[in-house]
């Protein structure tokens, strides 16, 4: 469960305990467009999936990211 949060927190350079399902573009200034790309790219590599551009844009928060991965059959 915390693996995804750890990954996102590492990229955003935020303490993992401050990152939760709601952390995203609307709540964290650190989540810039560049960090967004890095998050998506790192998630793709970590979980062996390839997201479409529209899916990547929809992953606006940790929760949305988790939902997208689950719809792809990834247990996160």
């Amino acid at each position, binding site marked *: 469960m915390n693996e995804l949060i750890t990954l996102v927190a590492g990229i955003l350079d935020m303490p993992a305990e401050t990152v939760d399902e709601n952390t995203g573009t609307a709540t964290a200034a650190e989540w810039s467009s560049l960090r967004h790309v890095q998050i998506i790219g790192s998630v793709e590599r970590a979980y062996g999936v390839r997201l479409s551009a529209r899916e990547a844009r929809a992953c*606006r928060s940790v929760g949305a990211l988790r939902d997208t991965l689950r719809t792809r059959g990834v247990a996160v």
Partner: protein
Amino acid sequence: MTPLAPRLAESLNGALHRLFAERPGLHLLGEDVADPYGGAFKVTRGLSDRHPGRVLSTPISENGLAGVAAGLALAGDEVVAEVMFGDFAALVFDPVLNLISKSVTMYGRRLPMPVVLRCPVGGRRGYGPTHSQSVQKHFVGMPNLALYELSPFHDPYGLLAHALDHGPALLFEDKVLYTRRAYADGVVDEHFRSSLTGDAPGWAHVTPVDGAAPDVVLVCPGGVAHRALAAAHLLRERGVTAHLLVPGRLYPLDIEPVLPLLERPALVAVAEESTAGGTWGSDIAALVYERLWPRLRAPVLRLSSADSIIPAARHLEDRVLLGERHIAEAVAERLDMLKTGAAVVAEPVAAPVVRSVAEPVAEVAAESVLVPLAVPLVVPKLNSNDTHYLVTGWLAEDGARVEAGAPLVELETSKAVEEIEAPTAGYLRISASAGTEVEVGAVIAELHELAPPLQTAAGSRPGSEAPATVAAYATAGGDEPPAAPAQAAQPAQACPPAEPSPADRRTYVLDRVQRGTAAVVSRAHKEVPAAFTAVELGVDPLLARLRLLSEESGAEVGVPEAVVKAVAAAHDRFGHLFGSLVDERTVALAETPHVAVTIDAGRGLYTPVIRDCASRSIADIADDLMDFRMKAWRGGDFTTSELDGGTITISINTEADVVFVQPIVMWPQLCMLSVGGLRRQLALHDGVLATTTVVVLGLAYDHRVVNGAEAVAFLRAVADNLREPDRLDQLVA
């Protein structure tokens, strides 16, 4: 100090203004000839403003505008009509042949038909097969029709006035001349002078300043005059004296005034840019034979362009079109034959030889062994920006047998790595090793029919183009590769190492993406006199609108996407900022805003292009942008088409703390807009201090085309698109 003569496009423009002032019944027709555009080459600039009602921009129908011109002339008016490109004169052939020229004498009495059709012709501008031709020959010999040609020696006013008074006429204008200056007062350069002879418009006679008698007289129309003059200089270096004869009117041909000049030389040569066959030059040759046969010392040498369509790629165009070197070589060769007494048989027309990349070239090296037929692998033109590419790696071993279509080599452009396939099957003989920079058109390998003996290093056999040779050729900028076999045989040790040697750990070799960036920005820095301006705008309403849109659509839409859309929306008002310089006074305009964006996901800088930005939704643009970002993150898996064709570029630097960014204009574009980081600051709103979010938009622009006021106006328009409520609604629709 003597003022510079005006450029010929300016002289033509001045001539038209003068004719309009002098002749109240004169009209001008053509496509896009009215202001502010003023014609494709700006020759008609200012006329419609000064003479409203007499300058008419017509629909795109050359046949139609020629018909209207004929009607005006029959009704007693005078007409100058512009055929945007002479190639489209094919569409006026029928009205010229059957109406305009015939009307002079087919109604029982002679009717004046003061119609002049201006036809920009000729190549050497990279316009391709259907916008580069020299079509003069198709109109030679039409009863009542006169043909004139612009030249650097003839006053355009005189030509146009003569053409109107002795028309109907076509005036051919070699496009290359538009940016050249006329030769004033008989001064050509330090070695040559000119004078006019014969009745107006007359012949220009170019002679050495010392008046030396000619070994060769080069007869050419105005569009070839500069090349003939350059050939005269080349011949001068070989001790050959050349004179030039350039007529103002091609047809009807009045050769009488210059016949005495054609009796004297050892050789008469006629040079023209059209393909051979049924040409004006052939008429000249026939007349010279008829009039001077007893005194002629050698057959007339006819020179023309190759029997080929005209390629768009400049390096290929140069191979096809008649050039100064070709003229000089052909003349020198013929004079040598005459000196040695070699028989000069009834000659075919001398023309540049065109070689297809796929055609075998049976060039036998100066070796005693028989070299089998080999197909050269020539560096193709891969994009519009670069003249040199890097050989990043061979995909087949030297000496290996490869099949047609097999991937052979990777070439790195400034934007991408391209794979080149084998044009035919054969045994691969590599002559440009990995790490070598090669010029477009260079031979980098050959495919042999038979397995050739392998040789050491990349030098291969003497006489072939080794990497060192290629590099020297490129650096020298000359037309010929170094001839000395010993030099050619030197292998590639002159090439820089691709990686730092272990012994030198204080060096750092740029990766291939950064080398591509380096090439682009270096060229831009060298070529573009750029200026910079910036504006700051509050973006709180924009951010609120984008947040709402993101939540409604469930997908992130950010400031960069909005800026792309806002820039594209400004295309209607500021079209010329989306253009590119064709030459120092011509801007090619873009019909559609294709916006390139800088993307650096930490793995190199890329500038992919988002297309048709004005007509697509911001969500579509956001999808493209995300796709490009992910490709940049994955290491630059871009196709060439994704990287080519941008009409303006946006540099996105929205990281926190970035105040503003001064970008480099991505030549040949004219502008690059930058977006800085979002910053919170205190500002007065209705007299009350409040926090606001601002961003700085910067614009670097080519100052040759864009001035500061326009740059600020453009930035304001983009800013308004991002902050005005009604425009924001349009932006996110």
